[in-house]
């Protein structure tokens, strides 16, 4: 079973994402900010990270930068999942290394299609 790390400071978003991801046969772990996510990635690399943009302590973009120099066996696929829906944000995320981009609000079909595009399901 593949593992998805959901990184979001919103408990509600984490809960919704977990519900959808588990229905797609993924195991789910959660992180409340970028620093928490980085620690978890170094301990046990997930297959994919669903990443919020704006979070306290460490933002999604800062997490992406830190991930590039993190000690990991395999780099996870990164799906940005954010309310930042402008084209400039989307381009910046892709340039920073995001594999996919989900604009909130999202539904099951959207997440499923993005996970298929990055080859996780």
């Amino acid at each position, binding site marked *: 079973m593949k593992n998805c790390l959901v990184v979001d400071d919103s408990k509600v978003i984490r809960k919704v994402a977990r519900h959808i991801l588990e229905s797609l046969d993924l195991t789910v772990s959660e992180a409340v900010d970028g620093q928490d996510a980085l620690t978890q990635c170094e301990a046990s690399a997930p297959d994919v990270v669903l990443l919020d943009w704006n979070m306290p302590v460490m933002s999604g973009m800062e997490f992406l930068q830190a991930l590039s120099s993190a000690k990991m066996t395999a780099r996870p696929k990164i799906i940005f999942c954010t309310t930042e829906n*402008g084209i400039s944000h*989307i381009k910046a995320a892709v340039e920073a290394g995001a594999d996919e*981009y989900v604009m909130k609000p999202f539904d099951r079909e959207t997440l499923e*299609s*993005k996970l298929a*595009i990055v080859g996780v399901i």
Partner: protein
Amino acid sequence: MSASSPGGGLQGAARILSGLLEARTGQVLSEGRAWRMETALRPVMRAHDLRDIDDLAAQVLRKRNSPLEADVVNALLNNESSFFRDLQIFDMIHRQILPHIRAEKKDRTLRIWSAGCSTGQEAYSLAIRLRNDAARWQGWRIEILATDISTAAIDQARSGVFSQMDVQRGLGVGDLIKWFAPHGEEWCASPELRRMIDFRHDNLFDARAPQGDYDLILCRNVLLYFTPERCQAVLGLLSRHSHAQSVLLLGAGETVIGQGEEFMPHPEFRGSYVRKVGLPDVAGGPMRRTG
């Protein structure tokens, strides 16, 4: 009122309106779809200032061939679609079917027909794949015809404007950035993509738009709305616009088996079909026709 009776079968206004849908499009409104009839027609009732579905049916009977009829038909058609729907099908098109056509067609003309294209995502997905692979298609004439019975769906497809939800379903972020531009809260396909596709309002039972033969025909999730007799008629039409090595793709739950004699499973491309009379060419010689 309820659209269907406890013993099965549509009743009253629902029967009149589903009869209109079948007469105009050939689509049969199954019991499974009947429950959403009133919900689907609510905007039409509001727009025409009609009280309820009975009032709507009475107006339809009173004025034949009116704009109201067209609105009812458009509202009852299922226009669900998404970009790269069934990703593995598009991968097969990209990795196997198109290279095969490219290797075999001597006149360097690629003709694709998206029959029952709904709001156009399938046709745009094909156009995107072809444009992303532009170097390989240099010197080729590419024609994409996309037809649908719904005037509303074709208008939207032609506009190239899609909601945020639409572009997130199946469309990768790389293709979104490359081929779409923000359009208020929505996204608009690039003029380059829009120019590649000829969107036409057309009825599969009285088809005017398709001309000649097509190398690849996609008619996915269309036959499931038709009676077996109607399915045979559509497959007959698709056969008349196919050549010996044309590839036909249907929806995941659809098949040609038991639907007439025109097509058989393709020997090479799993889940696709080829015209039966094309057998000798497929098995033996090179691609026969050239456009």
